């Protein structure tokens, strides 16, 4: 039973609950700021986003691993030449194989269908959570790439 600091008598339950709520509310803004700072940092890392020209330059330099975040059956039909499938929907099943093939420091360019498609960003986030730090998102996606007439296969 909580005690009244001043008098040593037990505090009524409601008053104790109110004190707990007050204490938590004083802490929570600082906690939420911490969470916000963390998510902003994550967004900043993931938001290392690439446009078509930058992606093509990286593609031509053969310095990166291209990752297709769409479903495997769509990847099977067509994808950027040399890209690897690591779908958002079956990431957990595909990731162990990917991890064996690609070193942690590899530059990875993730893409999906188009800019409104969130799969590339989600896969990029998952990769970063699994230790890959050099992850970029190609926002234009496969539609922009195909319209530009750049190499595809599938």
């Amino acid at each position, binding site marked *: 039973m909580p005690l009244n600091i001043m008098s040593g008598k037990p505090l009524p339950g409601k008053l104790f609950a109110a004190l707990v709520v007050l204490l938590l509310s004083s802490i929570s803004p600082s906690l939420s700021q911490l969470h916000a700072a963390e998510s902003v940092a994550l967004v900043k890392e993931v938001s290392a986003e690439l446009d078509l020209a930058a992606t093509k330059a990286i593609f031509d330099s053969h310095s990166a691993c291209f990752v297709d975040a769409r*479903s*495997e*059956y769509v990847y099977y039909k067509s994808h950027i030449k040399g890209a690897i499938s690591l779908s958002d*929907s079956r990431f957990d099943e595909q990731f162990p194989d990917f991890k064996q093939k690609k070193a942690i420091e590899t530059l990875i360019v993730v893409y999906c269908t188009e800019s409104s498609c969130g799969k590339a960003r989600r896969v990029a986030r998952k990769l970063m959570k699994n230790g890959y730090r050099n992850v970029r998102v190609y926002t234009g996606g496969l539609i922009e790439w195909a319209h530009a007439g750049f190499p595809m296969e599938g």
Partner: protein
Amino acid sequence: MTRIGFQSALITTLRLLLGAFFIMSGYEKLLDLKFFGLIIAEYQILPSFLIPAVALLFSLCELLCGTMLLINLFSRFSSSVMLCMMVIFIAAMINNVMRGLEHDCGCLKFLSQWYGLKEEIGIVPIVRDILFFILLLPIALLGSNRIPWKKDQK
């Protein structure tokens, strides 16, 4: 007499229509089993090692049952097998819709290729499979299991 004639005509019509439909559906799946397997994987119901076998089994079932319906060979048995498959398809799609997954249903690729119809899981393919279920029922209940080229033994 008239009633028997109508019943026979109804079952024959349903047999021919559904038989042709399942032959096309099974044939196109057999042509690209890997693609069909990848779509089954997207349902996230079966373990990976079972997927190739299930893809082959479903495709063969559709093709064989369709053929048997078309030539009226064990049509009751064939339609019962197809009924079971419809129940599996409907249950799998409802399961995925409820889990919020979005992907191709893997039902009838030729419809999407020829008529530009989208074949993503959702209410339309579920209702269509329920319709197939209803259309298969009369054959399963009232059709025959006879072998057409064998004379009836009296």
